């Protein structure tokens, strides 16, 4: 009772702000290109590296391309990559993690051997290696980062599943004659949702950053197409002349991460049965 009273305002605030930020991001991803004042690739050489002005609200980059337009186009690329990669890693991670944690035995041992081997590589290095196979494209990035982050999800899911499956309601389900699959889907998985949501929102942030790191290494979204990540990395040489070039995409990434994390918190509380009446 006390928890409900104390948490509700926080829940609402988180949900409100997080929801608003996520809403803006989705809106930009859908309609950004239609609303952008300029073609993100159009060059306006006289305006290159100029700060905010009436013509270019957020300034223009080293080729005189409009920063605002590039950010709005980039939102689609970055949000799409982060979202799909996150889903990819979650989907693969949950299937492997649940199988390992619930079935145990040799299935667990073999899956976890592979998983731990993958975990031993730094995520970015692994992604680089996979990119070498799939090539630098959007699809390639999603698959590479997805595979790189799956082992983390597997670890978290397996641990949670192993603790939930020891609870007596899972045994009760088996005694009723329910199949292993039904028990897993109906009783085990829903009770693993809280840590998964936290992981998913944190991972969203990692992925946006990882994508910019890949871009920085020349393996991300290939220029001249804009993404927040490659805008950040191409702005680096001009950090003294035109610091705003690095500030705007950086701000976009930070605000998005903040919003996604707050939304995740709110979702987790909302999905917690103890918060319901």
């Amino acid at each position, binding site marked *: 009772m006390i928890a409900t009273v104390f948490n509700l305002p926080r829940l609402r605030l988180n949900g409100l702000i997080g929801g608003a930020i996520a809403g803006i991001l989705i809106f930009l991803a859908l309609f950004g290109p239609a609303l952008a004042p300029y073609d993100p690739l159009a060059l306006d050489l006289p305006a290159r590296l100029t700060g905010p002005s009436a013509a270019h609200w957020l300034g223009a980059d080293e080729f005189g391309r409009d920063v605002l337009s590039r950010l709005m186009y980039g939102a689609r690329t970055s949000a799409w990559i982060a979202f799909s990669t996150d889903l990819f890693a979650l989907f693969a991670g949950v299937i492997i993690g649940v199988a390992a944690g619930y079935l145990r035995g040799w299935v667990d041992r073999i899956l976890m051997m592979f998983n731990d081997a993958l975990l031993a590589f730094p995520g970015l290095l692994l992604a680089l290696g996979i990119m070498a196979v799939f090539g630098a494209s959007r699809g390639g990035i999603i698959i590479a980062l997805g595979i790189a982050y799956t082992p983390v999800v597997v670890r978290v899911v397996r641990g949670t599943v192993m603790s939930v499956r020891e609870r*007596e309601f899972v045994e009760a389900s088996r005694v009723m004659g329910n199949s292993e699959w039904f028990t897993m889907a109906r009783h085990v998985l829903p009770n693993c949702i809280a840590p998964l949501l936290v992981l998913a929102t944190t991972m969203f942030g990692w992925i946006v950053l990882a994508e910019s790191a890949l871009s920085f290494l020349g393996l991300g979204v290939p220029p001249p197409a804009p993404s927040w990540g490659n805008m950040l990395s191409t702005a680096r040489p001009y950090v003294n002349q035109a610091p705003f070039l690095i500030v705007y995409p950086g701000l976009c990434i930070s605000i998005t991460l903040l919003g996604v994390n707050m939304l995740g918190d709110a979702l987790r509380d909302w999905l917690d*049965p103890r918060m319901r009446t």
Partner: protein
Amino acid sequence: MSERETAPTLEISGLKVTVGAKGEAIVDNLDLVVEGGEIVAVVGESGSGKTMAARAILDLLPSPLTVASGRIRLAGEDLVKMAPARLRRIRGAHIGMVFQEPMVSLNPSMTIGRQMAEGLRLHTKLPAAEIRDRILAMLERIRIPDPQRCLSAYPHEFSGGMRQRIMLASVMLLKPDLLIADEPTTALDTLVQREVLDLMVELARENGTAVLLISHDLGMVSHYARRVVVMQAGKAVETGLSGDVLRNPRNAYTRRLVDALPRRGAARSPGDAFGGALVELEDIVIDYPGRQRMFRRDPPKRAVDGVSLQVRRGETLALVGASGSGKTTLGRSLVGLLAPTAGRIVFHAEEGGETRPRDKIGGGRDTQIIFQDPYSSLDPRQRVFDIVAEPLRHARDMNRGQRAARVREVLAEVGLGEDFAARLPHQLSGGQRQRVAIARAIVRRPAFVVADEPVSALDMTVQKQILALFRDLQSRYGFACLFVSHDLGAVEQVADRVAVMQDGRIVETGERDEVFDRPKHPYTRALLDAAMLLDRRFAAGGSESAAERHTA
């Protein structure tokens, strides 16, 4: 100075604990006196405020709770207004506390020796060697085998009873004036419970320590405490000598507590009430595989060692034993949760009006199980209706409407009304949850139910209700039951026959009255002696209790 000498060890007057500064009162106008060297018990159900009253003494109230008014005096000195730094010197040195959960009240990452030394290092200026000697002496005193090794051992290497003894020892090492024991043995089984409590009383007497014992178990408490305070909804409703309170309760609530103490129910006449064998166990052996080490596997551990047993149609067979005796393992093998290593389980199923034996037990109509902990046996995300309806998924002969009707019918039978159907488990009390668990077990009208310590986690009054409900349902539907328990009080109320299990073997089987009144095996006798059953004590010379022996 003279006031200090005559003042009682602990004197609580007009204590009021509220949620926030002026919220709901959790403890309301409580008066309590503990004289030096005396054992006083505070008894009440969960939620009666007994634990919070005890915590208020040491200023250990959880966050929104505060002491609104009243005085708590230790030897005449008021603790409520005391500065935190001064209070810290009193905690441990003058007032010790033992908590309920021995599994979590010792720090798992510290050796026993270091944990026990902590108090002495903090409150005395003794040299390290002296501290070590005192700890060794104390460990020897509480009969821990190999005290030298115990110093460098970690808590997980000890059983629950041992841990509680160690906890007790480390508190008593400082020779406090007052020991607060909050349900110190509720998590332990009967035999161990008795040992720990006896030890506590001995240590308290040796050091002249007064004890404030907090418990929901009036029967146990009256055995040790000279005086009892009964609490209900934050108020002390009755105070008196424990023998008097037990024999002539004046307050209606106290009477309910006394009535809830286990008493033997009438025996159902065997033979005509029960049919033939329903489940037959033949020479069951269950091994747990040993742990996989780096290059070898530990040898398997034998949990059940050649058990043959028969459960008759419609009867309640109680399987009794201490923790670790293999009784739960055996119960789980009967519902198919684990397969026996050797032996045969024969189930005489009724199919189309005739019974035929088969080797395989299925779930559903054959057997169901009720678990001990109603907090973990229900899926926190399912509503009560869905929980109870789930076993009916496999009832192919029932349609949706029939299933819903059956669920409602069963919920009514276990005493949960219409409005409970839509609730989630966290909105129910422990007793209500256990009713839901029972409803789930009987919704398919099984022939056999395994109940694994179904009431151990509940208050005495709730235990009584649940056991009565269970017996009632059983006589209505005639399912047989294997009642697994260490609690002889509960067993005495529901069992028709009793099987006593020790170290994986059945050492004695017989009709309930036979086993309780004329136990043959020494282990059965030990269990019965430790159980402090009310009938036996009243029968054996009326009111004699340990407390009265000590004061006499």
